[in-house]
């Protein structure tokens, strides 16, 4: 559904048009019918990539195909729905009027349009009284729901959402998560960026991690987390003086008898140390890292 190869983008800002590379080399492929999470720290290039996919930015070099079309072509946008980060709309319109406006631009009209609006609003749990109020009175969460509802009005094959969960309370996040899953069940490919990594882990089939304008990890959540360095928690039935500890082993919080080994080598060193010192090992836990752990590790690596 989306093919991106060696994508590069540079912004030019200031009086002297100083260049700043936003994307240095981004390549990924989003198969049809998947939920694809796009994660990374602020300024990593997530929104830039999304705007390149929607034709709002022009690439410097590389290849982008959205539903088989170049994003600069109107044809590509017939297949996608997009909701920007913190969506802004014409605040003198009501939510329903806004939906009609965008629906008409998608070629809908009359009863089919009204039916589609009802469907989209109910999917986002936005079919409430407030939908007939002016948008200037909306909270951030209401705006986010309307933003996603307008993106799905045309029943697109591909839904691109930039931070769809931001500004939502837990109920709103659940509603959006369920809407994404429901649309995906109907065959919609969903490409979205998010900072809420627990949500990404829960619903994404595949994930790409972008740091410093480059894709540093790509695959299923299992692929990404299983390749990352795992922590080992070793419980020992006696106190150990800090000074004697092998490298990369630290106590867990204030618990003096639980020790965290950063990797398998540290674990082996610590077990050796315990055996030689006659310290009884009670149990050992292998803790798989979360996406957040992997992302933090990648950010630290990029900074060094």
């Amino acid at each position: 559904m989306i093919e991106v190869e060696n994508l590069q983008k540079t912004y030019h800002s200031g009086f002297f048009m100083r260049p700043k590379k936003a994307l240095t080399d981004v390549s990924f492929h989003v198969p049809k019918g998947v939920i694809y999470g796009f994660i990374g720290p602020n300024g990593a290039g997530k929104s830039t990539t999304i705007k390149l996919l929607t034709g709002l930015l022009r690439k410097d070099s590389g290849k982008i195909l959205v539903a088989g079309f170049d994003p600069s072509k109107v044809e590509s946008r017939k297949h996608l729905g997009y909701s920007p980060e913190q969506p802004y709309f014409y605040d003198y319109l009501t939510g329903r009027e806004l939906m009609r406006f965008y629906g008409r631009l998608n070629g809908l009209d009359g009863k089919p349009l009204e039916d589609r609006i009802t469907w989209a609003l109910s999917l986002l749990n936005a079919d409430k009284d407030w939908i007939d109020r002016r948008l200037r009175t909306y909270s951030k969460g209401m705006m986010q729901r309307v933003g996603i509802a307008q993106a799905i009005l045309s029943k697109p094959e591909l839904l691109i959402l930039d931070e769809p969960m931001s500004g939502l309370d837990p109920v709103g996040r659940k509603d959006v998560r369920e809407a994404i899953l429901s649309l995906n069940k109907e065959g919609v490919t969903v490409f979205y960026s998010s900072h809420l990594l627990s949500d990404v882990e829960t619903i994404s089939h595949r994930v790409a991690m972008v740091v410093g304008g480059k894709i540093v990890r790509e695959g299923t959540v299992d692929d990404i987390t299983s390749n990352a360095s795992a922590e080992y928690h070793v419980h020992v039935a006696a106190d150990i003086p800090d000074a004697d500890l092998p490298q990369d082993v630290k106590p867990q919080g204030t618990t003096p008898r639980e020790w965290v080994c950063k990797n398998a080598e540290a674990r082996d060193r610590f077990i050796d140390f315990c055996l030689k010192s006659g310290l009884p090992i009670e149990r050992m836990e292998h803790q798989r890292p979360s996406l957040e752990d992997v992302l933090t590790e990648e950010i630290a690596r990029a900074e060094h």
Partner: protein
Amino acid sequence: MQNIKNIGIIALNTFRESVRNKVLYNIVFLAIALAFFSILLGEWSVFDRAHVIKSTTLSIMSLSGLLISVFVGISLVQKEIQGRTVLTLLSKPISRAVFIVGKYLGLLGVIAVHLALLTVVYYVILALTGSNPTLSLLSAVYLIFCEMAIVVAVALLFSTFSSPVLSALFTIGIYMAGRLSNELMEQVNFVRRVGEIEGGQGVVLEKVASVIHAVFPGLYRFDISAYVVHSVALPTHYIFWNSLYALGYIGVFLAIASWWFSRRDFV
């Protein structure tokens, strides 16, 4: 077909947005107040009262149209960009040219309603003062509309790549150049005829005037108030040819605006 429909949808939305602009109402009310003030001017003037009222009101129409084009028109595209509404709009299956033409027609609709309103006021004033309200005055109003249609296209063109303040200055500059280019040429020709320009400097001045005359839209063509006020017949097909002239310039300005806008990044 969908493109034409989308232009209409964007134009209607632009019209709705523009009529909420307080600046627009200030200009409209000021124009109506000045139109009524022309009755007093007619009384005070040493010239024929009807002539003064007619020419003053037509000038007010032209000037208020210019103010609307500049102060409402140039902010239209910038508002979409700064308000970030452009992000959602341009992610829909519409080309950037459709967006530009839709915006243009929306504002042109505002100008048309403004001129229609002033025309009604105009005829009411003429009727009240017994100043012979003939239908031929409508041709002058129509050509003011054509002139404003060009000015709106210029304003829109500048607003696609420059700030509102610069766009306003550029648009007013082109309006002045377009209004005065014929007089400038006449002055240059006159000076040349009386032999006051000799040598290189004169040639350069003449060339600059010729370029301004040839490149900038000759907006002086659309001011026929002297003809209609004094009931002088216009040359044959004058309105038809000048309508085509306006269409030509509008087409060029909108094509450049669309081309430029389609190259823009929306961060």
